[in-house]
């Protein structure tokens, strides 16, 4: 079964600085998608960024970018120029193209200090 591991229960970053959240996953499949979701205190899950496993180029969405290392099964999220609104729980998630179920990591709480 696929598993997703987020080894950092909590991270802090100073406003305007850069922070990287770690995620590793375990799978025997070659075709899959990876996602980062953000859940602020309002509890609304927001899709931040996604990556298709067949793409070598790392995805980027404005201040958010990923470092996708397929061989190492690693998918970290980098947040540049951190803002107070970035404070939230961040979940890494995996979905197999074949099986279709989204599998979540345990989450990382990100605190942004002003």
């Amino acid at each position, binding site marked *: 079964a696929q598993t997703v591991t987020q080894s950092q229960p909590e991270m802090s970053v100073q406003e305007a600085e850069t922070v990287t959240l770690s995620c590793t996953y375990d799978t025997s499949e070659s075709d899959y998608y990876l996602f980062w979701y953000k859940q602020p205190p309002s*509890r609304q899950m927001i899709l931040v960024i*996604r990556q298709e496993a067949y793409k070598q180029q790392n995805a980027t969405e404005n201040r958010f970018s990923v470092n996708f290392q397929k061989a190492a099964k690693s998918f970290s999220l980098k947040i540049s120029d951190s803002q107070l609104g970035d404070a939230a729980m961040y979940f890494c998630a995996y979905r197999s193209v074949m099986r279709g179920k*989204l599998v979540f990591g*345990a989450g990382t709480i990100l605190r942004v200090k002003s």
Partner: protein
Amino acid sequence: SAVISQKPSRDICQRGTSLTIQCQVDSQVTMMFWYRQQPGQSLTLIATANQGSEATYESGFVIDKFPISRPNLTFSTLTVSNMSPEDSSIYLCSVRAGGSYEQYFGPGTRLTVT
């Protein structure tokens, strides 16, 4: 992206009663899912709501406890039956359109069982 609404947004219920949660999407979607998120935890998939047929439940979840309906491509309900305090959680509806690999979430229903 799809716009998803859930009713109620929160409720406090007595042990032994049942609550039905509604999920409405602003467009037709192929797949609808129900998740549970216990306080401070990650998301756990309860079931996939299939239009016109019985839902597909994950291990540890049964139809008698969590009956699900999906009468059309934009609406689904999840009932939490014979509630106990252990059912206190956030319940989230999630959707994925056919041909899309992105999955979106509703705002969640916060359930407290006393």
